[in-house]
């Protein structure tokens, strides 16, 4: 079955304050969607809500992935369905080496979408997890690292600890390459990158692009779209997608800004299907 991510009329709050006010979106495997919009329009919230961040409360709507409504699933279960989020601000976790973490992560994702059964100790399940031999894992990881031009010393460092902004973003892409998601959400992967780092990250994303991978690329600059060509461009404003179009839309936004897309009060805004 095709891996589609379908968002229907999604509303979400943070601390009682509504951020998403009815988002509709469809991302299919093999497609690259750019999600643009001004600061505070709800782009990052959407990514977090799709992954199940408990900070946000979904008040209405549905999220479907691979034919299942995943709204009640834990973040780890969503990830094991091969839904991926490249974070805007990746957390650093001191003392945990990238190598160990990625191996556990890969094992988990390969285990697939099995829910935690009622009353079953989660660590009990882990004992049954098929472990990936370190040697084999190391080869896989180093292949990806070579592809993404990531330095070897990186895998013995602590996760994102002391990484520069560019290193953090590249580490996210490395994880994406390793975990082979079917739909990846990339939250402002271009922010904070200088032009060289931006090129490397873009090259990496292009290298991962293919019929197996759907991408939702969140950005508020058109810049990264010079390197990663989107199939569809969506514009988010005040918690809704107010306009969708082809790649030309990004250039138009670059020229005209976002203000012309501001929805008038009480309306849902203009929606143009690509």
């Amino acid at each position, binding site marked *: 079955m095709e891996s589609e991510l379908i968002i229907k009329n999604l509303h979400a709050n943070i601390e009682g304050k509504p951020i998403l006010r009815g988002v509709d979106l469809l991302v299919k495997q093999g497609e690259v969607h750019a999600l643009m919009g001004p600061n505070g329009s709800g782009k990052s919230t959407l990514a977090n809500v799709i*992954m199940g*961040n*408990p*900070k946000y409360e979904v008040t209405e709507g549905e999220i479907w992935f691979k034919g299942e409504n995943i709204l009640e699933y*834990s*973040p*780890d279960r*969503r*990830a094991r369905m091969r839904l991926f*989020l490249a*974070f805007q601000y*990746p*957390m650093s*976790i*001191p*003392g*945990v*080496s990238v*190598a*160990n*973490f990625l*191996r*556990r*992560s890969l094992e*988990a*994702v390969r*285990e697939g979408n099995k829910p*935690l059964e009622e009353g079953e*100790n*989660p*660590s*009990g*399940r*882990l*004992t049954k997890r098929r*472990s990936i031999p*370190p040697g084999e894992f*190391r080869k896989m990881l*180093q292949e990806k*690292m*070579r*592809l993404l*031009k990531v*330095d*070897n010393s990186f*895998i*013995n460092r*602590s*996760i994102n600890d002391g990484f520069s902004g560019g290193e953090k973003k590249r580490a996210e892409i490395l*994880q994406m390459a390793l*975990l082979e998601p079917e739909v990846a959400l990339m939250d402002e992967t271009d922010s904070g990158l200088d032009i060289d780092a931006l*090129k490397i990250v*873009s*090259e990496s994303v*292009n*290298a991962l692009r293919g019929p197996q991978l759907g991408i939702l690329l969140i950005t508020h600059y058109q810049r990264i779209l*010079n*390197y990663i*060509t989107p199939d569809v461009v969506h514009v988010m404003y005040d918690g809704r997608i107010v306009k969708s179009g082809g*790649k030309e839309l990004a250039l138009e936004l670059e020229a005209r800004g976002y203000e012309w897309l501001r929805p008038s009060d009480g309306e849902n805004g203009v929606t143009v299907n690509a």
Partner: protein
Amino acid sequence: MPKALPSGLSRSAVEELSRQKEEPEWMLQKRLQAWDIYENTPTPLGRRGDLGTLRMFSNFKFQALSPYVPSNGTLPAAIEQSLEEALVDQRAGLVVQRNASVVRVELDEKLKRQGVILTDLDSAVRDYPELVQQYFMMTCVPVNSTKYTALHAAFWSGGIFLYIPRGVEIEEPILTQVWIDSPGSATFAHTLIIAEDQSSVRYVEEHNSAFEGEQASLLDSVVEVYVKNAAHVEFSNLQDLGLNVWNITNKNAVHEKDGSTTWVLADLGSRVMLADTGVGLTGNGSVGELVGVFFTDHDQRYSLNTLSDHASTATNAETLVKGVLTDESRVEFIGMIRIRPKAQQTASFLSDHTLLLSDKCRAESIPSLEIGANEVSASHGATTGKIDEEQLFYLMVRGIPREEAERIIVQGFFEPVLQRIPLENLRTRLRRSIVRRMSGSYETEADTWVDAQERWEVEGVDEYAISLDSKPVDEEIKLVEY
């Protein structure tokens, strides 16, 4: 074979113990003096509003304990097996104390010829009386330090005596274990280490118990380390007693010029623990380092007290403690840096970080500074907090279930301190113990994690490293612009 004393602590029990051991008069007198101090010292009750560890001890039924339970050398299978696990291939010596008796002593022959003495303290009283008289509970941990050190001095039994002559450097670790497998007993294990000028030793002491049931036992131990000119002692202590054991421990090291000590303290077990650890920097240029790790669960209560006592010029001390609490456990940490007026050019640092995994656990951290000199550098820092929900979310978004993600974060929290534990075997077992404690009986994950960690550490990655320069050209990714 001596017989166990009936339960009850009394002056006549002290006399009976000394008689059974056929001790010289001076030791009997020392015990009796200590008993008098114990009787005349008021029971410490702690501060108002503290977490109540001392108060719990004040209500502890000492009179229900037998102060002397000797054991023979035949170790139960469970202890033998655990001993096997603990023994690294290379070691310089081994001592096993079971309840009140030292049942096994081994020392490398070459070290014996060099004059190293490793024996039980009872034998040392008989064979090296002048050394014991000079050092035993005199300046390092004096009898009257606390009510409980006085009790210890009155009833000490078994015990380990290590003497390292001038210039002898013991490379491989000396391993010692104290086992308690008798309910309702009090064990007063004593360790006395004398490291002469320019000598060095790595010493590991483990405290374990192996008995079931509610009836509590007590381990009231004292460790004294005398570090002479430019000598170095590395002392590691892994405390993994059962929840039916109450634990009081006093450790101190005193230094001559340029002497140095490293304390590594790992505390996981016991129902209630009262621990005092000190570095007495009495010699110019002496150095003390303390690395501590603890993990508490159920309704464990710890009171951890450290003292960096700077009494001479150009002394250095660093204390680093990290702990994780869960369930309803409570830990109080009091870290003191004392810089006396003579201790100019001193540097002293202390940090204490705790992570709380449950809503009902409590941690209190009281770092304090007493500075009597003006040319010093001293600082302390303490943090207490919960696991960061954003860190958890990050790991979960990578497919890792919440419970395991918590364990990974805890591992990471401990890792920098574990990296400072010099002995690999101890480090590995400690990692494993922590994971075991967090996930109950599921050991596979602990082993996978630890093995993986170790393997990466041991093998490194360089052997498979791929030079970026030799990257084939056809893998270059072309930029597409539009």
